[in-house]
């Protein structure tokens, strides 16, 4: 693997920095969140225009065939600006599942439309009692005629209320915690028997509980092999965890920057807070945690495209544990060093803290993945 960014990656970074600095500052984000959808359709169209939605998709389906590292470069920028659009749900999770396991018809119908910005996806693999275990699936899919009937409850499905198609995990065979017998289905959120209970999330995104009560889907809506869903889910989620980590690393960088700036301008006892050595050292600890997480993150991103199975899983678990720990430390310290101002909604720093905290809980927190890192060896 390479430890230097390619020219293309540097260009992508620069153009993303430029676009987001211009269009996605803290006030713009605030206005977007207050809008009807909680994210911006205009911004989504711009992302399509910039080629960001096509970035990782296969070239034969309207994509740019980008690598996980390319995508991490973009996600890091999204982290710096706390982008709230359904990029993770649509591109990183949903489109990746289709690209990996979908039929030719599914790919042709969905991927070019995702790249153009016309179709959004959501990926529902959580369940209320499963906590962070991807194989614990109680939602059932029973054969009925030429198709399937789905019943159950998918929990905290990110951006489900923005999605044109849902990709959901259901059990077609076996007991609740069997690794075999899990199948992915494409589900129309408007179909009979689908109920969405949407809500904003603590960190300014959107999520929903997806309730399924006898939802009919056809055989053509099965994504990948019947009963063979888990390896697909694990591959998609491993990569998504690395990319969430890249987003978190971007948020860390911005948090450290904001906190450093604040300490330079905040005067107490007749001098800027940044002149106190005890506070300088704490800033250095934060910066250091960010640097190490950044380095490990891009190594893990490289591993997503070059390894499979246990090796890939261990790389993903490792970076997720590392960013969970670093994000918590940096977030908590940034608030403490800001003092009362850090507690206020008007300061950006609290919003970064909330996003980093919620990234830790998505797909398993630091403790969960540290244990996996230990046992996967």
């Amino acid at each position, binding site marked *: 693997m390479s430890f230097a960014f390619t020219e293309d990656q540097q260009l992508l970074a620069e153009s993303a920095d430029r676009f987001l600095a211009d269009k996605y500052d803290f006030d713009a984000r605030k206005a977007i969140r207050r809008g009807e959808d909680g994210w911006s359709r205009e911004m989504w169209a711009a992302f399509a225009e910039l080629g960001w939605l096509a970035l990782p998709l296969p070239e034969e389906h309207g994509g740019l065939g980008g690598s996980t590292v390319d995508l991490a470069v973009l996600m890091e920028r999204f982290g710096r600006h706390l982008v709230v659009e359904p990029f993770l749900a649509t591109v990183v999770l949903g489109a990746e599942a289709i690209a990996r396991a979908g039929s030719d018809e599914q790919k042709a119908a969905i991927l070019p439309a995702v790249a153009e910005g016309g179709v959004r996806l959501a990926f529902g693999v*959580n369940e*209320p*009692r499963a*906590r*962070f*275990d991807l194989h*614990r699936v109680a939602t059932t899919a029973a054969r009925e005629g030429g198709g399937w009937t789905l019943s159950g409850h998918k*929990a*905290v499905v990110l951006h489900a209320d923005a999605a044109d198609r849902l990709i959901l995990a259901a059990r077609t065979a076996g007991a609740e*915690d069997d690794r075999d017998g899990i199948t992915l289905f494409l589900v129309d959120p408007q179909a009979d028997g689908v109920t969405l*209970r949407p*809500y*904003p*999330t*603590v*960190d300014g995104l959107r*999520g929903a*509980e997806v309730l399924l009560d006898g939802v009919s889907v056809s055989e053509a809506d099965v994504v990948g092999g019947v009963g063979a869903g888990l390896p697909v889910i694990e591959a998609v989620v491993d990569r998504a965890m690395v990319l969430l980590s890249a987003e978190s690393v971007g948020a860390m960088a911005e948090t450290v920057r904001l906190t450093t700036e604040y300490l330079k301008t905040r*005067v*107490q*006892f007749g001098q800027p807070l940044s002149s106190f050595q*005890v*506070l300088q050292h704490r800033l250095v600890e934060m910066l250091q945690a960010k640097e190490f997480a950044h380095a490990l993150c891009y190594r893990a991103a490289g591993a997503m495209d070059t390894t499979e199975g246990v090796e890939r899983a261990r790389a993903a678990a490792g970076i997720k544990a590392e960013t969970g720990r670093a994000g918590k430390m940096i977030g*908590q310290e940034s*608030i*403490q060093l800001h*003092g*009362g101002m*850090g*507690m*206020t*909604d*008007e*300061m950006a720093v*609290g*919003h970064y*803290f*909330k996003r980093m*905290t*919620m990234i830790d*809980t*998505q797909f398993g*927190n630091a*403790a969960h993945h540290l*244990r996996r890192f230990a046992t996967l060896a």
Partner: protein
Amino acid sequence: MELVLSPEDEAFRQEVRAFLKEKLPPDLANQSATGLRLGKDDHVRWQKILYEKGWVAANWPVEHGGTGWTAMQKHIFEDECAAAGAPPLIPFGLLMVAPVIMAFGNQAQKDRYLPRILRSDDWWCQGYSEPGSGSDLASLRTKAVRDGDHYVVNGQKTWTTLAQHADMMFTLVRTSDTGKRQEGISFLLIDMRSPGVTVQPITTMDGSQEINSVFLDDVRVPVENRIGEEGKGWTYAKYLLGHERTGIAGTGRSKAQLKRLKEIARTEMSGGQPLIEDPDFAQRIAQLELDLLSLESLVLRVLYAEKAGKGPGPEASFLKIKGTEVQQMLTELMMEAVGPYAMPFQPETFRDPQWNEEPAGPDYAAPLASVYFNWRKASIYGGSNEIQRNIIAKAVLGL
């Protein structure tokens, strides 16, 4: 490691328990423990019940309507109230300004304010911090200029907790710009209904509104509202900060929260077994419990020293640091316990008592992330934990 109580103290505990069982309104019980926000009326209702019983002022001397309890009795009372889910006392009147009025106020001030504090007739708030004066409180700039038998006050106070409910604010103001900064500060009691007082809420990152900016524009405050001497306000404030810190350990509440954390960890599943059986999580709870036990042990030691006639010394700073760290870790573990269900933001489910729709996820999960973010304040307020370390370095280590 339960405390071994003397027969007298055990009898007292039973008496407190019986009282709480009989008098604590069920709608208030556990409301605060489960994260549902309490309103002004809830607090006042409970404090008036305690007043009726003669138990609202555990820290006051008997002559002013206090209980005359021993240190251990006070501790037992706090413990039992927290365990029963009673609303916490609003500290600004009972625990903060009242001791200052008793120690430094004149007879007229004692007669006027103390009975009203005792009956919860007035809601007090604390006007200390300013936008430019946080940790460096002595740099405060709110100015009080003498005009006949009034002071004319101009300036801005900030982080003023629950000022939106307040009738009165005790305030540090600058009455002189010459000499040492600390010697130009006076302690004024300001009627919040005075013309020129404006309260503006500050939304915190968890979405709640409990702190405020208080703007003071040409507010006329009678000179008779000054506590003690002009220019001695800093001395009185330091006296008060000592009082604030012993209460800030909050061991009773933390013990109740620890119990709740364990209940949540017993209910939540991880890897097919209750989370509380997860070795990592169990260890973190155990460490937290040990921290809480050592905290409580030091609290009791300080309370006994106080009984022996020693005021709360610099060791109170240890209690503030450890007490707030324990409170914050409790909120952190509770949030972690619910996994992905920390994410939905549904403030109406825990802020609006009339709300009866089910939240996404288990009902205890909805407020946990907000509570976690909200409690980051604890290591900042009441003299930040960095300032507490400065105090210890100076006063204990002699550095």
